[in-house]
């Protein structure tokens, strides 16, 4: 009975919070669809009088090269860091050695370090090997500092593959590589999807490395979006259109593969 009475209250609270969480999206979309002269502070809540896509045109022409940079960065970086994470996860879950738990903890700590604490040596290093201000340099950076999280995710994923399966394969004469190739990899598809989504989203959205390791034409889209605001008159409609364009790839991933996104989120929170 008590539970029944509170039903409407539950929905009222949830809907109120939903409106608050959706409000920025509403403002983002309507502002981006207004021509510049209609974007004024006191009409910001009103729907546009006429649909105007010119701000998308402007934003796209400014951001297109950087969007491409982001794709050139994210795709190889995601693939490479998933592969390395899978190798590490396999060893740390199925081929434990003396001290492997400590090794794992030592790797895991890398996930939490503020990247400021390695940034200056990183720049010196990338300069010395000629990869500073280049997409390959950023790819390398993201693969290295993505190792802790991808290792953690694959280790947790492989832990769910039953050990007796590995044992019986060993008895049948399968060696380390065969077990990886014939058992682990074929069973890893979901693991790879979860890790790939997580890395794709994180690398796409990353800002500190992008802003300190690249300049102008090498910059990924998040830095370019931030620079859109740098001009004298802030064209809010263009800013909003740009924000939407820059957010679109990860939003699409989230909408299409939300289930895996959440799984990655939970796996990334160091539970287990």
């Amino acid at each position, binding site marked *: 009975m008590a539970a029944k009475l509170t039903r409407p209250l539950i929905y009222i609270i949830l809907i109120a919070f939903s409106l608050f969480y959706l409000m920025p999206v509403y403002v983002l979309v309507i502002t981006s669809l207004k021509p510049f002269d209609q974007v004024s502070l006191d009409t910001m809540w009103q729907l546009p009088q006429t649909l105007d896509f010119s701000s998308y045109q402007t934003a796209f022409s400014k951001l297109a090269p950087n969007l491409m940079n982001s794709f050139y960065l994210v795709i190889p970086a995601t693939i490479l860091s998933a592969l390395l994470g899978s190798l590490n996860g396999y060893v740390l879950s199925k081929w434990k050695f003396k001290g492997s738990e400590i090794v794992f903890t030592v790797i895991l700590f890398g996930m939490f370090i503020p990247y400021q*604490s390695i940034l200056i040596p990183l720049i010196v290093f990338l300069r010395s090997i000629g990869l500073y201000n280049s997409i390959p340099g950023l790819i390398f950076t993201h693969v290295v500092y993505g190792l802790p999280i991808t290792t953690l995710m694959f280790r947790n994923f492989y832990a769910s593959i039953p050990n007796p399966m590995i044992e019986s394969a060993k008895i049948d004469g399968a060696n380390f*590589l065969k077990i990886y190739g014939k058992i682990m990899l074929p069973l890893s598809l979901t693991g790879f999807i979860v890790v790939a989504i997580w890395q794709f989203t994180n690398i796409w959205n990353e800002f*500190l490395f992008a802003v300190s390791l690249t300049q102008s034409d090498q910059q990924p889209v998040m830095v370019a979006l931030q620079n859109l605001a740098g001009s004298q008159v802030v064209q809010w409609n263009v800013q909003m259109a740009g924000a939407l364009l820059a957010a679109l790839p990860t939003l699409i991933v989230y909408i299409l593969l939300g289930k895996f996104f959440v799984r990655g989120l939970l796996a990334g929170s160091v539970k287990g």
Partner: protein
Amino acid sequence: MNRVSSDRIWSLVFILPSLLLIGIFVYGFISWTGYVSFSNWRSLIPDYSFDGLSNYISLFKDFRFQSDIRNTIFFTILFIGFVALIGQLLAILIDQKIKAESLFRNIFLFPMALSFVVTGVIWQWLLNPSTGVNLLLEKFGIKPLWYVSTDVIPALPIGKIEFGIPVALVAIVIAAVWQMTGFSLAMYLAGLRGIPEELKEAARIDGASEWKVYFKIILPQLRPITMSVVIVMAHISLKIFDLIYAMTGPGANFVTDVPALYMFEKTFRANDYAGGSAIAIILLVSVAIFIIPYLFVNRRED
């Protein structure tokens, strides 16, 4: 026998590259930064000569860095508090076998797919002092200045700064909470789903009220989740950079400045590499204080 050892070698071959990379790029580079923080490298020309603690000492005497510490303390408390509370509230409501569960879940989770830069750009517009949310609030006679305010309340003079909550920081808390609530919601929801139904039913049959079931059964079971949420949010909050960079920058009187932002500007705008390194090391130590005990406790439970 022979095969076992060749498997061992293969497992080493698999993991060795990653271990080397982590060893050099995480631990090696941290040591390097640590050394720079004790050096005289304060211009574009590297100078690794030893200068003791002077970079640290001048930081703690610095008005801007003192403001950073204050801002970090209040940002962390407000941010973690709201993310944990709202996330838990929403998770409990969503867990009540409601209709359109996945719709609600998705609404609260989607900001997590955005970057802090996008969030900053949107909320900068929303919380602009003369627009947005404020037009609504003005109808109730409230006129907040949000992120341009330089007020600190309550202002208690400590060192060179006024100690209290900078009003402008609240704007950033709102944006950050908006973005990260989904994380704690997902964590709590997973936790709630893990509590056996029989446990709650048994209590209800014994005549416990819903409140009692919540406080005596559900909350204690969620404690480890709260622990994880606090740890993860604390480390995000301590090193937050992009949201503030995109939304307000350091702010007038440094009311929205944070150590990560100061580190960036000190290093790359002022070319004070030693000073920047010192901030970075302070950041690292503050994160490590939270994370290292947590990692070891978590490992042992495994």
